[in-house]
């Protein structure tokens, strides 16, 4: 059975090789601390299931301190040579697209098609997190395919991956850290406090005020948590169900759907949704890490207004 643990080992190995390459990269002004950062992250992937939780916690703090102190720098990567690229593009043509499309399509095929396939009584792909496991497996197949098509040696391919890894930098860690923070917020009861705050401060007996509080509550709380899924139960149990459904007899199905979508508008606006907003900015090598948020902010605000109008109209 292919499980998520296998995929974590692959990520860990990639990070470990990249860390070793970083260590020997004299063009990196902070090669020791940078190598330490990537090796620690590699350990989290390779040994995360075996290390005690408090050791893992200390590892998180160490990663944040290295990143915060500016200890993580990019190495010296010769930019891909333009001549070689043009030559490769002319020679290989559409073959270059094959591994990229393979990642997407194979993930889909594996996730949907092999979900229930068993070999010798065992599931081929772990039922937990099928899509994630499929994506990991597809990347591995695509990697081999890319090596075959380009004739690149594996170690040089990892070098090429390290060029992108350095471009992403500490942003690679951010989605993980935000999920950790979300967990701590939940344990500390931050959600209940926020909905209490809203309920105490606003005259929710008025239906219009209650609807506004619901929509803005979803969007703002999503921006804080970076995730509409975390905001939805809190705001629904705080305002949506007791006040809007209970007192004002709102229709629950559109209320739920439009509330969640108000939250999605918030997701477009917050650096806390790092996987969608900060990582892409790093991946596209943008100087302004908030450039993606700025590009989608007008869409988010206009759409939030439309959504609000729909909420008033339909609920």
């Amino acid at each position, binding site marked *: 059975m292919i499980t998520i643990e296998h995929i974590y080992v692959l990520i860990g190995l990639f990070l470990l090789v990249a860390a070793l390459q970083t260590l020997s990269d004299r063009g990196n002004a902070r090669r020791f601390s940078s190598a330490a950062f990537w090796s620690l992250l590699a350990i989290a992937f390779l040994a995360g299931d075996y290390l005690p939780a408090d050791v893992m916690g200390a590892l*998180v703090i160490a990663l*944040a301190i290295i990143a915060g102190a500016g200890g993580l720098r990019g190495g010296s990567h010769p930019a891909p040579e333009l001549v070689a690229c043009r030559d490769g593009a002319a020679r290989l043509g559409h073959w270059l697209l094959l591994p990229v499309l393979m990642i997407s399509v194979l993930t889909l095929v594996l996730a949907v098609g092999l979900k229930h396939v068993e070999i010798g009584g065992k599931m081929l792909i772990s039922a937990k997190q099928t899509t994630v496991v499929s994506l990991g497996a597809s990347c591995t197949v695509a990697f081999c395919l890319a090596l075959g098509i380009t004739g*690149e040696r594996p170690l040089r391919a990892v070098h090429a991956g390290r060029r992108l890894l350095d471009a992403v930098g500490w942003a690679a860690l951010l989605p993980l850290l935000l999920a*950790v923070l979300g967990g701590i917020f939940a344990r500390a009861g931050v959600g209940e406090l926020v909905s209490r705050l809203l309920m105490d401060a606003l005259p929710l007996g008025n239906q219009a005020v209650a609807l506004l509080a619901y929509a803005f509550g979803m969007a703002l709380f999503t921006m804080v948590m970076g995730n509409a899924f975390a905001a939805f139960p809190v705001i629904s149990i705080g305002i949506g169900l007791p006040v809007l459904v209970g007192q004002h007899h709102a229709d629950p199905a559109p209320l*739920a759907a439009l509330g969640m979508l108000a939250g999605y508008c918030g997701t477009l606006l917050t650096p806390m949704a790092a996987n969608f907003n900060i990582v892409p900015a790093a991946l596209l090598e943008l100087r302004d890490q908030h450039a993606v948020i700025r590009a989608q902010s007008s*869409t988010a605000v206009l759409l939030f207004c439309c959504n609000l109008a729909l909420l008033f109209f339909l609920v």
Partner: protein
Amino acid sequence: MSWLPLAGIAVVILGFALRLNGALVVVSAGVVTGFAAGMNVHEILVAFGEGLRDNRFLALFLLTLPVLGTLENHGLREHAAGWIARRRTAGLFRVLLIYLGVRQLTAALGLVSLGGQAQTVRPLLAPMAEAAAERDCEDLSAQSREDLRAMSAATDNVGLFFGEDIFVAFGAVLLMQGVYANQGIALEPLEIALWGLPTAVCAFLIHAWRLARFSRRFRHERPAP
């Protein structure tokens, strides 16, 4: 009941507003919230450790990097750009609009993993958008290139978010059903999913309109002959 745990939110907002290092801001906010909620050092470390261990799947995009890096060293981006540059009908607006539509439709059918920032935006959409803009405008400024890439990323996000919510088996729909069921209100997933449609249509129209305006900017940048 104490309001102290909200201090973590203040740390987050302040940290991002001052543009401090994001990793440090988030970890500090976690430590502050943990102490405010009465956890001790060991409990905070355990919470961090377990959180990291259970959420490692969020860093899965790292596995795409060696694939993309290798292909880019052999001209992937040049090929994607050249393919667009050779097609006179593939203007900037049309490229982004088609991507938006396809992304939204496929996400609505549950085919969420067909696209993505690492899988399609960096290797394909961004270079295609740059190539399409280059045809209208000979020397793009560095800022224009940034704007083109950022808009490509934004288009993927908008298409994904406001497509997947219509898909019945999507996590969000099931989450909504679950939360309401816990409170004694039974809803059909299909019912919830269908109420996502009006907003999805609005999202497409609004973003399409913005893409049209955005693309026009590059037509004006063309120097007079």
